[in-house]
Structures are given as C-alpha cells and as structure tokens.
C-alpha cells in the first residue's frame, strides 16, 4: 500500500492557481523527488502534504488515512526547511530534542536519543554547541537529526542542499541517500536541480505550472521524456523536424529510420513530428574514420570546451536546425574548429519522437 496518496489535489491562493490537479502515489521507503522550475508549485505541494496548507480540492491520504482537518503537528510527517529553521536561542542538543519534549521518556532516554540522532548525521559530540555557531552544512545536519528523531513515516525536504556550496552539496547528496537507505523512511525531496534529482531519487515527478508533467524513474525520465519541455528541463536535447509514416520516420538532416513504440513516449501518430536526440548519443567522426552506424553530414558552427568534454553545435546539411554533440576529450582525438566539415554518426534507437 502506498504511504502517500494524493488525488485531484488543487490549491488556489486567491486568484492564483498554484496546484492544478495532482495525482500521486508514493510507496513506503521510497526516495521521491519533486523537480521543476521556480514557481511551479513544488513547495506548495510539500506544504500540502505537511499540513501547512489546506487543499482547495482533492484528498491527501497518509497511510490510507484522510488528512483533511488534521493539522501539521498531528501528521506523521516531519519537514526539513529550506532555511533549516534552527532555533537560534537553543543549543544543538535542545534543537534536536525539541520534538521529544512531550514524549513519555526519561531524561536519560531523551539524551540518548538525541546523541543517537546526532551520531546518525555525523555530529556526535556537538550537542552542547550553540546553534548559532554552526556552519551551513552542520545546520543542515542538525535540521535532519531534529526531524528524524521523531521517526516520521515521511520526511519532507524543501531544497535542503541549495544553500550549500558545490563540493559540500555533492557530499551531502551521497550522505542523504545513504541515510535514507539506512533508516528506511520515505523521503520526499524538493529540488530545482535536475542532476541532484537524477542522482538521488528512486522516482521523480517533473512539475510545470502546478501540474505533474511526467512521473518516472531517473533513467526513463532521461531517455524517454514525454514532452520537449521535460526533455529540455532534464539535460540537453536537440530537436529536428521530422515526418512519421507507419514505422518509419524521416528526420531533416539525418535521414530515414524506423522507430519503435517506446521511442514515442507521448504516443505515435502519422504526420509532422519533432525528433529529439541527446548530445552524447551523437558522435563526430575523425577524418577517415569508419563506422557501421548511420551517417549524416554538416559543419561545425560553435565549439565549447569543458575540460573533460567538448560540445559542438553542428549545422546539418539540408535543414536550418542545429544539433549539439558532446565528445569526450580522449587522448589523440582531434578537436574540430568552427567551420570544419563534420561527419555525424547516429543510431535510430537514440531518437525520441514528440508530437
């Protein structure tokens, strides 16, 4: 049975329609991410689950129980706030133990629980510190420990890593994932960082303008996005005009290919389509290099050097549309210049068809 079940959830803020019909089932123990651009309603959805916002329409079930009229302090969820919301007038231990105030435990048991929670997030022995005297990463850990000590069924995290610098963020991503596996609690993570969502999640819901555009595991989301909007939000994708007839698609600049049903995530119908392809699924061939993949011709219009990778924009013969191609900078591989002729290798299975 799913631990969270939303159906037909709508939220209005006055005239503003923030959530426009959300249906969602989240299983126990899942690491689930809400991904979308700023203002799409991710935080609102999280706050609806936490009980900080009432729904305008629809139902929210937690472990099968209707949450209508159940306030945030009586829901089996806990939240890690974007600002961490560490109580500045309390010590680290008092912060972490805050939720235990009314628990039927002795002083010693509470202290042990606090120490255990601190140990879980790698802050053992920090209990006596003033909360004010912590670094960003430590505050984040305190916020985690404070929420986890109550052993909630669901932990809600609103962009918990966005305030950290890049190195620390990557470290915390790995730690959060490890922590989630070890405690087995359902995590719902809000993020606008697609890479973070791909790295950490079991499943991802991509949201635009108050709706879920696609809900899938990271691989499916990346390889078979259901719309150009989703495809562009997650990674990079080039689009070429095409025409589909039966099992065969004709792609401007590339040529003919047969496509299978899974390459048309939004459904298949004869007519004009947009054909998408990821930069790493195209290759530039060195002069004289042979290939048994399909071949197209064009010219390099732009080159961007990234150290380990080089990205090329290539104008294909016979179309105005350009494709982006990424190439690993391997030893001995020549870097092409702007204006050089380009031979592009591609495969039919790499194409994704959008209506």
């Amino acid at each position: 049975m799913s631990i969270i079940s939303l159906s037909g959830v709508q939220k209005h803020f006055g005239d503003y329609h923030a959530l426009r019909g959300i249906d969602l089932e989240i299983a126990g123990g899942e690491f689930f991410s809400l991904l979308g651009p700023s203002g799409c309603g991710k935080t609102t959805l999280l706050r609806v689950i936490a009980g900080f916002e009432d729904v305008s329409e629809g139902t929210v079930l937690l472990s099968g129980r209707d949450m209508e009229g159940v306030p945030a302090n009586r829901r089996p969820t806990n939240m890690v706030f974007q600002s961490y919301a560490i109580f500045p007038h309390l010590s680290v231990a008092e912060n972490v133990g805050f939720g235990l105030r009314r628990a039927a435990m002795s002083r010693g048991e509470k202290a042990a629980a606090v120490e255990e929670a601190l140990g879980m997030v790698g802050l053992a022995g920090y209990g006596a510190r003033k909360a004010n005297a912590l670094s960003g990463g430590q505050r984040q850990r305190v916020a985690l420990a404070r929420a986890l000590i109550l052993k909630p069924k669901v932990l809600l995290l609103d962009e918990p890593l966005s305030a950290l610098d890049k190195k620390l963020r990557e470290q915390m991503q790995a730690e959060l994932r490890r922590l989630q596996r070890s405690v087995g609690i359902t995590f719902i993570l809000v993020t606008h960082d697609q890479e973070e969502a791909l790295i950490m999640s079991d499943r991802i819901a991509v949201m635009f303008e108050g709706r879920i555009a696609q809900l899938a595991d990271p691989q499916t989301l990346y390889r078979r996005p259901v719309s150009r909007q989703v495809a562009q939000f997650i990674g990079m994708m080039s689009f070429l005009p095409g025409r589909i007839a039966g099992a065969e698609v004709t792609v401007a600049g590339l040529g003919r290919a047969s496509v299978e049903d899974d390459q048309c995530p939004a459904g298949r119908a004869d007519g004009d389509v947009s054909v998408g392809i990821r930069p790493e699924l195209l290759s530039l061939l060195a002069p004289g290099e042979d290939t048994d993949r399909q071949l197209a011709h064009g010219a390099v219009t732009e080159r961007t050097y990234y150290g380990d990778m080089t990205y090329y924009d290539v104008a294909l013969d016979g179309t105005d549309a350009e494709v982006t191609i990424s190439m690993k900078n391997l030893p001995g591989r020549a870097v092409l210049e702007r204006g050089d002729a380009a031979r592009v290798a591609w495969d039919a299975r790499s194409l994704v068809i959008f209506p």
Partner: protein
Amino acid sequence: MTLRVYAILYLVFLYAPIVLLPIFAFNDATVIAFPLSGFTTEWFRAIPETPALIRSVQTSLVVAVSSALLATLLGLCTARAGARYAFPGKRPVTGFIMLPLVLPEIIVAVALLVVLLALGLPLGPWTVVLGHTLLCTPFAVAILGSSFNNFDPALEEASYDLGESRWATFRLVTLPLVMPGIVSSLLISFTISLDEFIIAFFLTGTEPTLPVYLWGQLRFPQKIPVVMALGTILVALSVLLLSVAELFRRRGLARTGAKDTGGFV
C-alpha cells in the same frame, strides 16, 4: 567640514540646557544665574520632604508602567499580525496606528479631552494612561515590528511541525526570540510616558503626574532648585533606561542573527 561644525553646534544647542540642569541642582543659591555660589546637596535632600512631590512621582510611575504594559501588548499583537498575515486594508490600518507618531500631541490631547468630557468620564490617572498608550503604541509597533521582521516564520512552523501546539510554539520559540524587543519596547514606552507633559496636563485630574506637578511649582522661584534636582534625577533615569533598551534591542538582533537596521537610539 561645514557639516561637522553644523552638527556640533546643533548638538550644543540641543543638549546645553540639559547640562545646566545638574549644574544648578548642585548650586548653593535659589537664584538660577551665574556665577555659581557653591556646592550643596540641599535641594536633593529637600525632595523627600515634599509629600505632594512624592505623590506625583507615584502617580507618574503607575501611569508609566500601565501605559508601557498596554502599549507593548497592543504593539505585540499589531506587529505579529503585520509581519505574518496579509489582510485587506493592512496598509491603511497600520498607518492609522502609527498616526500619533506624527500628530501634534496638543491635538491628541484636546481631542481626547473633548471626547472624555462628552462621555462624562471623570479625569484621573487612567485617562492619562489612555492618552499615553495611544502615544506609545506606535513606538512599540515599530520596535516589535523590527523584531518580527527579523524572525524567520519557518521557526514557528518547525516547532509546530515537531508536534507542539500553537500556544507552546509561542511560548517556546516566539516569545524568547522577541523578548529583547518586548523589554526594549517596555522601557521606551515607560520613558516616553514618564516625561510626557501635554497630554498629561490636559487629561490629569486632581492627581497630577510628575511633569505637571513640576510645571505648577515653577511659579514659586524658591522651589526652582528642587525642581532642577528632580530634573537631574529624571534625565539620569531616562538615559539609563534608553541605554538598557538599546542594549536589549542589539542583543535581540544578535540572537536572531539579523543585520542592524536602525532603531530609535
């Protein structure tokens, strides 16, 4: 450079009379004039021997404490509502509450007097409390508003999320964090009420507050040095209270980790 000279002159004109106060309070003569004739503490010793003076001090203390409590309570509610909620008419309502800050006191005093007389209410310390609360509330709102604006609303939500009730959240999180603002608001309201004259003069009944009593004494030249002595004590007290208030305001900012964005002192 000219600006600096101007600033210095400005401060001299502003504070010179206050410096004269303690000088003549310790001067051994009933006539307020230079040259000084000698040092004495006689005028200070005369203070407790004047029962009417003691009564007026008591009245003033009761009025100042009551006004400070009322103004701070009203300010607390207003500031929290203003910082947390959006409601129709918020701006005009807030502006209306802050109005006594810019309204000439004489207008407030006369208007209140007219209303009280029309209602047939007797004048007394409580009518002065009424007027002073009106006067102090904008200051309380300004001080506490800054406390609440520096206060992350997620802190209250976090407490609520961790299972505490709204009241426990207020007691455990909100109150400790705005406490320095409350103390500072109490002290400033108290100080304002203590030396306020115009409203007190109009609304006081048969029990004058201290400033009103002092004003009455100025008609008797031989009492003037005693008035000076008392004035000295009042100035010292005011400076002390305002310093403590500012200290608490700064401590509050440090506690919530916010930037200093001004204040009254």
